[in-house]
């Protein structure tokens, strides 16, 4: 969840590191630091706060041409200057930055302290420089000392180290991403390619168990003590696509990018007239016909995309579909792994819990499919098959365009499986795909009504709590809508299946708790209208997301959702995104970097 950057080359390392940290800031942001090799022991600057706070303590210039940097999101120890990375050993000759968690750090720390090492922080990371120090004192070379230290630690980690007397950066990776960018006579390190994308497009991704040494013009990777070659891949992303382009927040920019993202998601994949889908995934017809269950495994927003998809798969492909929160996932009894398809949904492809669940599924022998936005991410190397959602880079912590692209990709998967299992006729498939094809235009219609949503948000922003209700596909949208609002506005927001209201949550409904109801196709709107009447009679204001004016006369504010059949609730969700955005913005929240949250959660 934190960010690592490194540079070895000929130019000044300081601006490269500082810009890299800025690029990575969305990943973690309670403290930041750099270590610069200026000849002699590395010079460390670090502080609590955002990268801009670090910039305030950094010197204007440094002669260093090698260095590492880090932005941190606390797991072990409070965000303090001492706990910020880089961490050093007793001599100050070794500086280390780390993402992940070292599970056996208690034991190692006790052992090192018994040997006389003095610890300056409460972090798990600090054991690494002290372990290296001990090896160096025994006469090992920096590379050997680093490898020996890595061999002693357990857990998940991406490590980068600099040492007095060398121009190299030492790297190790286990279950936490780390990549190397190749420039012309210079080399970059990042926990994510966005750290250095403006400088280098040729990238090597390290694999689990790799230990590597980076210099200005070389990357040497070892795995189990053997020298190995890792492929160099070309990254086609635009680094600058991550800039705000006139919008106040990335989130709003990304909300408005949805029509474009959806066109990319759909491009070349559907033939609406003939009812055919081409996803370029290798799931043979015989296999799909033998399926007994599709399991969706995901966290957060991706979990809600899974809920939406499970509904579609059961209805259109006639196969049992279950949805699992990745951290709760186990391959439990009563299932035949050979007849189970496990679909991991993760925007970043680096979500630790989803990766762990996928490994569990893989162990049982189930076939796995990753649905992700990031080409080359960890999940893609783990899963048997990959389906890319093609939403383009998403910077805002609150997922928006990736949710609609996930659901759309999964809807295409449902149609594909339905066709292969002969559960859908070409005509039925054609209708579904025609609805999918209409998504960019329908979402644009919602975006064009932004002023209306803003007015609704202004009317209700100061309410006690917000409830979102819906049925069927509308239920998953209600959950996602509530998540979006709570993430960025810090208001209490809950989503419920509309029918569940009277079984408890109705007790919370007052005239100061607006209720947002999904009243569209695919969401059993007529039944939800009864729930609307229930809350209305308790005095709650109701905002209806209505197709064809369903329930319009029972709601206080109606927002029109174009009729797109089973895709209508997804379009309604765009209203909820705008609503969450405006409520949070009216309250002056840090929309792109909400408190306590980070974009991709790479620790369990």
């Amino acid at each position, binding site marked *: 969840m934190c960010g690592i950057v490194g540079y070895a080359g000929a130019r000044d390392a300081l601006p490269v590191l500082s810009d890299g940290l800025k690029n990575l800031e969305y990943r973690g942001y309670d403290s930041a630091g750099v270590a610069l090799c200026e000849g002699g022991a590395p010079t460390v600057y670090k502080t609590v706060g955002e990268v801009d706070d670090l910039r305030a303590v950094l010197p204007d210039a440094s002669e260093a041409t090698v260095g590492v940097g880090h932005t941190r999101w606390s797991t072990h120890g409070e965000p303090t200057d001492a706990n910020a990375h880089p961490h050093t050993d007793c001599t100050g000759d070794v500086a280390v930055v780390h993402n992940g968690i070292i599970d056996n750090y208690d034991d190692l720390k006790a052992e090192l302290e018994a040997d006389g090492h003095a610890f300056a922080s409460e972090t798990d990371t600090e054991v690494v420089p002290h372990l290296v120090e001990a090896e160096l004192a025994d006469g090992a070379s920096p590379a050997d000392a680093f490898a020996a230290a890595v061999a002693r630690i357990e857990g998940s980690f991406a490590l980068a180290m600099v040492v007095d007397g060398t121009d190299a950066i030492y790297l190790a990776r286990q279950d936490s991403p780390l990549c190397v960018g190749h420039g012309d006579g210079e080399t970059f390190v990042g926990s994510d390619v966005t750290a250095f994308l403006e400088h280098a497009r040729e990238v090597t991704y390290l694999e689990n168990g790799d230990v590597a040494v980076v210099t200005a013009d070389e990357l040497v990777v070892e795995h189990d003590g053997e020298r190995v070659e890792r492929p160099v891949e070309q990254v086609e992303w*635009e680094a*600058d*696509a991550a*800039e*705000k*382009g*006139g*919008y106040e927040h990335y989130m709003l*920019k990304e909300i*408005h*990018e949805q029509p*474009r993202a959806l*066109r990319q998601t*759909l*491009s*070349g994949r559907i*033939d*609406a*007239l003939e009812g055919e889908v081409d996803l370029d995934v290798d799931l043979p017809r015989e296999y799909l016909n033998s399926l007994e269950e599709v399991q969706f495994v995901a966290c957060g927003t991706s979990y809600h995309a899974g809920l939406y998809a499970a509904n579609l798969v059961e209805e259109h492909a006639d196969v049992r579909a279950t949805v699992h929160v990745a951290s709760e996932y186990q391959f439990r009894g009563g299932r035949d792994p050979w007849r189970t398809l496990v679909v991991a949904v993760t925007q970043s492809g680096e979500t630790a819990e989803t990766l762990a669940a996928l490994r569990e599924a893989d162990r049982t022998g189930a076939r796995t499919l990753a649905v992700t936005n990031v080409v080359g991410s960890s999940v893609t190397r783990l899963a048997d098959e990959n389906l890319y959602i093609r939403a383009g880079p998403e910077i805002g912590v609150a997922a928006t365009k990736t949710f609609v692209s996930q659901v759309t990709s999964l809807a295409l998967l449902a149609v594909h499986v339905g066709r292969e299992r002969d559960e859908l006729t070409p005509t039925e498939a054609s209708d579904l795909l025609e609805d999918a*094809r*209409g998504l*960019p*235009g*329908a979402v*644009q*219609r919602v*975006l*064009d009504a*932004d002023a209306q949503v803003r007015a609704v948000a202004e009317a209700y922003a100061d309410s006690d709590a917000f409830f979102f209700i819906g049925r069927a596909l509308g239920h998953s949208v209600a959950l996602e809508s509530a998540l979006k609002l709570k993430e960025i506005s810090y208001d209490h927001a809950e989503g419920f299946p509309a029918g569940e209201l009277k079984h408890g949550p109705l007790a919370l409904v007052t005239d100061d708790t607006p209720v947002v109801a999904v009243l569209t196709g695919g969401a059993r709107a007529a039944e939800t209208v009864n729930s609307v009447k229930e809350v209305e009679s308790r005095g709650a204001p109701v905002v209806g997301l209505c197709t064809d004016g369903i329930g319009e006369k029972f709601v206080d504010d109606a927002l029109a959702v*174009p009729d797109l059949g089973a895709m209508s609730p997804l379009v309604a969700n765009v209203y909820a995104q705008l609503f969450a955005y405006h409520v949070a913005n009216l309250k002056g929240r840090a929309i792109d970097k909400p408190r306590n949250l980070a974009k991709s959660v790479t620790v369990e």
Partner: protein
Amino acid sequence: MKAVILAAGEGTRLRPLTESRPKPMLPAANRPLLEHVVEAVRDAGIEDIVLVVGYRRERIQSHFQDGDDWGVNIEYAVQAKQLGTGHAVLQAEPHVDGPFVALNGDRVVDAADVERVVERVERDHETTVAVRRSERPSDFGVVTLDGDRVVSLVEKPPKHAAPSDVVNAGIYGFTPAAFDALRETESAGERAVTDTLERLADEGVVRAVTLQGRWLDVSHLWDLLRVNGRVVADDTAPSARVADRASVVGDVTLGADCRLRPGARVLPGSALGANVSVGANAVVANSVVLPDATIGAGAVVRDAVVGENATIAANATVEGGFADVTVGTTVHEDVRLGAVVGDNARVGGAATLTPGTVVGNRVDVETGAHVDGRIESDALVRRA
């Protein structure tokens, strides 16, 4: 050198198309007018662009982002209220610290002409205005010249009183001093660049540069077809799919993921946006079709603008040709316009649209209905 491109305007005469997008985002050959302007500016050697945006600015910002896709750096200045072109230029002041060019974002011009203005203002550091000859000078600001010095500038004079046929072409070269001049110009409500130019011309400090290339202005809906016809080229996106028995004739632009079914014919002067589908045996001629639109089997669409995500169902007919079209209170006689169909509108099967029909956004025209005149947005047209 920076360029300030004015793109905050709404373009009320181009409704319904401008109800949901600003006028500079109307497409010619599948690319917004503003994109043609940005490219002309870039090809004139300017890398730093300030877009002054306002009405529906999200459409512009989402399209251009930071300009990377065009190899330019784009910054945005927001004109919250449309208080005139002069006011718009003033919004760019914090982004500009040297000589700059300012031009309209909805008028297609050539890079070479932008370069002429750039060179002149770089050389002389004087206020420069691009001029050209016009057959209808009194529709524009008429300029009187003495050599290359502008002696006077008169906005839209009566036809008989136009002092010359040289008009202001709307590309300006300014120094930062222009900001003060714009501020000092008295204004009642709107503040136009031309008010300031009139004053500066009286002081004798405005130079003129004569344009030599294209100058394509979209004032009315039918102009979109004319301008599209001028810029459209034979260009098919790699992801577009044209069935073996479909045909594309002459200069036609097909966007990404366009699909032409067997027997579909797309004739010269047409541009089909991304994800547009044309059904079997349908005919599209001299038309601008916006992204995601669907043209059903057997439909005929001539001289038409079809809005985003609109549907022309099977066998519907836009026969095309000339008509008298009313805009506001003015009747424009004999213009070439088959029809305009608004965004998300649906023209039902076998419906017919009389030449000159303007169908609003989200209008639903029932199967077999016959439509003429102007249909307001969100209306339902029943079969008589």
